[in-house]
């Protein structure tokens, strides 16, 4: 059989398995096994056990459970509530007023949490009822929360970035650094859209609230201090040379525990609940990574990734066209798949392709995170949509429609980073000039 037929067959098997509700990790394992049958490897079972052990017993991956645990601890504190109170008084002068809280709070919460859905849910829990109570338009409120929630994976720390960095074998800290400016760009795009929308729809804005005295504003903003200290702690340990890129995740946990203790939400029970919660998420992700690493190995044995890379190469697409074509592919995948699966399923095949086209793999990591963000807000399967659907009680169509402008703003962000790649690579190159 030629490689294209084999690739097609594996793809069909994968789609049938995943479609029929087989667990994603299991589907990947099974597909890896199917792929191995077309190679001259004597025993797929031994290859399976060896590669997965090699990929799982990994120092770098150990940052993943710690970042997840950090989120679990913070979810049990009042951090998001305090963030709303701290930010709200300062935003009354902007067109769009408190809707900007959604963007800012998600941005700040995103810099301590590594997950998009968790960021969206945590901020929405406070912001949705508050904004509704004050008479803000619910569609913009929902849409901005769906969109801004995805900042959780674009602004470091980020579970997706750790997964990508491990899959692509690039430095985690460089991918983290690369996320800051695109994160700021996306926030700017969101806030800009909200402001323009508010100027065009003055009738949909609630009446202005009485201004708060400056001293009181400051007092309210004191609520932001714990969160800021936590962000500062993680970076200080890194910059001062107390911790390596992987170890700073442990410092993040330490800081989160301190916040939880300080806000009196730390009990033995909540501590252990956060540990077990983090363990379950870790196991879920690690099993998917295990399945994916076996499938990648099977692919490497078959030689499909290289063949595909040289096939795409033969079209002589310009880098821009290639990236736009990949974006369309990922948007389609993203309608039905979650972000982790999207990354682990495609890296084996796509990475050789983009390296051949001369793309920086750190840059490509940010591109991938942005398309995963689109997937989080695109129907029918988009986790941020599910979150907001349950929280607002609206149907899925309404939430998806509310999120649509923000989906397109993410497309715009991809175009921006493609046309100006320095927006991504400038910061990591500044810190690690190579």
């Amino acid at each position, binding site marked *: 059989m030629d490689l294209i037929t084999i690739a097609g067959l594996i793809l069909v098997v994968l789609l049938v*398995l995943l*479609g*029929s*509700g*087989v*667990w*994603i*990790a*299991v*589907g990947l*394992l099974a597909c890896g096994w199917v792929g191995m049958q077309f190679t001259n490897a004597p025993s797929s*079972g*031994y290859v*399976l*056990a*060896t590669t*997965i*052990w090699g990929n*799982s*017993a*990994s*120092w770098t*991956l*150990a940052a993943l459970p*710690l970042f*997840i645990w950090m989120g679990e601890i913070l979810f049990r504190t009042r951090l998001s509530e305090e963030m709303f109170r701290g930010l709200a008084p300062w935003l009354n002068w902007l067109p769009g007023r408190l809707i900007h809280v959604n963007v800012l709070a998600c941005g700040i919460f995103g810099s301590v949490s590594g*997950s998009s*859905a*968790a960021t969206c*849910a*945590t901020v929405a*829990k406070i912001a949705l009822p508050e904004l509704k109570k004050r008479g803000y338009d619910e569609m913009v409120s929902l849409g901005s929360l769906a969109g801004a929630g995805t900042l959780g*994976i674009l602004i470091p720390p980020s579970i997706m970035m750790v997964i990508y960095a491990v899959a692509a074998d690039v430095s985690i800290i460089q991918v983290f650094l690369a996320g800051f400016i695109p994160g700021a760009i996306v926030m700017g795009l969101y806030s800009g859209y909200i402001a323009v929308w508010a100027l065009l729809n003055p009738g949909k804005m609630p009446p202005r609230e009485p201004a708060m005295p400056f001293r009181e504003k400051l007092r309210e903003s004191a609520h932001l201090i714990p969160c800021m200290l936590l962000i500062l702690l993680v970076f200080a340990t890194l910059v001062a040379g*107390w911790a390596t890129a992987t*170890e700073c*995740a*442990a*410092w993040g*946990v330490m800081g989160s525990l301190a916040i939880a203790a300080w806000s009196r939400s730390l009990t033995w029970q909540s501590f252990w609940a956060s*540990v*077990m*919660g983090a*363990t*379950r*998420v*870790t*196991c*879920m992700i*690690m099993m998917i990574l*295990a399945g994916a690493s076996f499938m990648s190995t099977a692919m490497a044995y078959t030689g499909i990734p290289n063949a595909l890379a040289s096939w795409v190469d033969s079209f002589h697409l310009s880098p821009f066209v290639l990236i736009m074509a990949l974006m369309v592919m990922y948007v389609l995948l993203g309608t039905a*798949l*979650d972000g*982790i*699966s999207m990354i682990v399923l495609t890296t084996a095949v796509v990475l050789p392709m983009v390296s051949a086209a001369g793309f920086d793999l750190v840059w490509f990591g940010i591109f991938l995170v942005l398309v*995963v963000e689109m997937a*989080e807000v695109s129907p*029918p399967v988009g*986790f941020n949509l599910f*979150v907001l659907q*349950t929280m607002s009680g609206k149907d899925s169509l309404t939430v998806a429609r509310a999120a649509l402008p923000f989906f397109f703003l993410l497309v715009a962000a991809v175009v921006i980073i493609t046309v100006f790649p320095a927006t991504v690579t400038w910061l990591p190159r500044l810190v690690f000039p190579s």
Partner: protein
Amino acid sequence: MRRVLDWLYRATGWLAGLFLLAIFFLMMVMSIGRQIDMNVPAGDDLVAWCMAATAFLGLAHTFKSGEMIRVELIFDRLAGRSRWVLEVVSLTVGLVSVGYFAWYAVQLTYDSWRFNDLAQGVLPVPLWIPQMGYAFGLVVFAIAFADELARVLSGLAPTYEKPAPKTAEEVVERAIQSGV
């Protein structure tokens, strides 16, 4: 039997949690230790092994709690007999795949013991020791699949099925558990 199995899933899950704590403590000791002139020999290897132990020992517990993700697009639109058939098919594919994986993980660990394979870092630890968590975790995971398949075949609802969240807190918790 039921109680023994449930205890097994819970106990391996807790062990996984303890290994997660161990990762945290080791990293803190390595980080602070550097400031006070104390090195943890092969600390990186120890963390890597704890990572593998966490990942695999907790599988059965995670699966039973309904936190292994699957694409539910078609599944959610089915009910009754056809849903049951699809559930049995998924569980069978799962049992065969995970069983196959577990068998070879045990084989790998046994080979490491037979060949007396040693770790390659500063501490020459026999590799079968850290690989125990890998092999054992996968065996328990395979048992959990067999257990669920037996349940569904006998007409019971699978344990991993969860009702939709009701309160905002539940939504947040589910969102965190999604990992995305």
